[in-house]
């Protein structure tokens, strides 16, 4: 039990740190992952960029999936498809810039009385993953990433753990 608990904490901390970690190690990634074009690898570090290969995704996009599912899905529906309560965010990601999406997540939104989105500014697990959420939404919007829980591209996963 204790092992399980400490492991889960470890992953939690790791996931919060993913964005920072992946930026600081970007150049190392470029050198180590030989089978991808440098531009593609570089792109995966920017909010909204993603890699989808055989239905698998880069770790940031995967983290975006997890964050979406934990925090956004309750209103916006599974797989960023929208619901009777709140709009599809994969559609929103087609039209909205990262800055717009990020400011809505941080600041919330009141469209009309009865249609309100809360601010997530004080929720570190959302705020630290805004870029990853955007990557996940962009991946869904592109049609390259299907529904459900994606797997992480193995060589990139190893890179993260290393």
């Amino acid at each position, binding site marked *: 039990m204790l092992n399980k*608990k400490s492991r889960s*904490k470890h992953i939690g901390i790791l996931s919060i740190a993913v964005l920072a970690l992946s930026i600081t190690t970007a150049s190392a990634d470029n050198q180590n992952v030989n089978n991808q074009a440098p531009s593609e690898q570089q792109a995966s570090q920017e909010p909204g960029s993603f890699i989808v290969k055989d239905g698998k995704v880069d770790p940031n996009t995967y983290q975006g999936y997890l964050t979406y599912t934990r925090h956004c899905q309750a209103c916006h529906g*599974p797989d960023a498809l929208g619901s009777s309560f709140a709009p599809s965010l994969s559609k929103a990601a087609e039209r909205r810039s990262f800055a717009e999406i990020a400011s809505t997540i941080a600041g919330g939104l009141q469209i009309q009385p009865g249609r309100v*989105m809360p601010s997530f500014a004080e929720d570190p697990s959302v705020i630290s993953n805004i870029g990853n959420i955007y990557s996940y939404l962009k991946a869904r919007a592109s049609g390259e990433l299907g529904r459900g829980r994606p797997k992480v591209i193995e060589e990139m996963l190893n890179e993260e753990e290393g």
Partner: protein
Amino acid sequence: MLPETRLAIATIGLLAISMAQANENQLELQQNPDLWATQLGNYQGHRYSELDQITRENVGQLQPQWQFSTGVLRGHEGGPLYVGDGRLYIHTPFPNKVFALDLEDEGRIIWSYEPDQDFRVIPVMCCDTVNRGLAYSDGKLFLGQADNTLIALDAETGELLWDASNGDHTIGESNTMSPLVVHDKVIMGISGGEFGIRGHMTAYNVETGEREWRGYSNGPDDDVLIDPETTLMMGEPIGESDLGLTTWPEGEWERGGGAPWGWITYDPELDLIYYGTGNPGTWNPEQRTVDGEPADNKWAITVFARDPNNGEVKWVYQKVPFDEWDYDGVNENQLIDIEIDGEQRKGLAIIDRTGFGFLLDRETGELLVAEKYAPETNWASHYDMETGRPVVNDEFSTFAQGVDVNTTDICPTAMGAKNMQPSSYSPDTGLIYAGINRICMNYEPFETNYVAGQPYVGATLTMMPAPVEEGGMEGRMGSFIAWDPVKGEVVWEVDERFAVWSGALTTAGNLAFYGTLEGHIKAVDIETGEELWRFKTPSGIIGNINTFRHNGKQYIGVLSGVGGWAGIGLAAGLENPEEGLGAVSAFSGLDEYTKLGGILTVFALPDSDT
């Protein structure tokens, strides 16, 4: 002991009678088959009407008489009340408008009321801004606003008589339920199980709105209003003190959920109210262990029998100790008098979230029957009838599988094999009729931190349609069933494309009615389930179908307006688990069938048929 108890009941009874016409008024109205004076039709929660103008033979002629748009989007739960004054009283989701509509003038608005409430409650309403409707007694209407304000309105004029605060949205509390009037009290629960609230049930004075008692769902006995010497569990005194505190890790009971947001039923003879409590705080079971071992997390997912006069708990039955699936135990407790093994018993039947149909003795809380009404149910193999505890299947135990592990193909889903949609009991057939959900899930617990007013969930869910049994409808996500509560058997089943999220109605016309998420209202033969009539309303139905008679004519009334958890989960459709990731789903999205919009539709037979 027994004579003392009797004396106590008698004394309390006298006191109640002298103080309260309210209860008598509501009882009197319920006993008049022309009326539909309380959301569940009667105190026992039967949703059955003795009216028989509309029958198996003529229901095919049923026609809409008029429709009324509430002007509100969002999920419309609950239904219209008719108390015999020529008006229908209806309500809406947030902003919780109330309308008195003239039955004799095609729904002309006699008065309307709109509370002025803080919209910041909306983000703490986990599953849409629904409201399950008004309560009525003695010329007063009672409404639980989303923002936790309980109000009384003058039914004649719509004037506000009093208001009372039942909770605080800044700590995640909100209200969706319909209050119940018993004696001189209006009784109200609370929502917020996904925000780490501490559940409570509270009684307010019907005349003044003054708080009279509050019983919490967890914490010390003094707060729960349990006496371990007299409160029964499985027919015996609990014995041990403060289980609502000791079955939690340090302090976790304070955010231990157990929100009672469903329906309350009442037995006027035993003078007891019955309701179920919701999930225990975070959905991550690991965070609710004691010394790393599963703990019961009492009294979440528990049926409470309380004395409505002072809130004291007569008995408890915990349906799911140590929840690992969000099997939020709020489903209605139908009070039915049945014969078991040649003996007449006062029963309490539940078509539960868990996929099990329970039958309990409502005097003592003893478990009599626990059988699966949804055959796909796999989280537990069965209930141990001696201990009353489920025998959990390790393969589907999200605790055994562990934190950050995705436990797959658990049936039913967290939505439950049945959610809040209230079922119907026909005393003519002795069967329960219920709309149910045929959906399974993958569930991955993760560690989460409590922040007041923020979601406290700690699990990631994906949902998929349940496996279809031989002869079942391909791709179905719901059914309407007839259930024998004594034998614990499904008598017949009609499959539906989507979860059936509307409240059922049965009538002496040998009919059962229900609504679908596409927006159909349907009438079926009570004996076979054969469809006899349908009408497509403008939006999906998650409201309840009610019936009443005015000026000699039987009416059927229903609110449509899709939403609720069903609208959130099913709008885009579910993925077929048999297909590869990203394949085009064979399962339809609700979004292709219906859009938002609250409409009341009132039906009757053409004049020539009545």
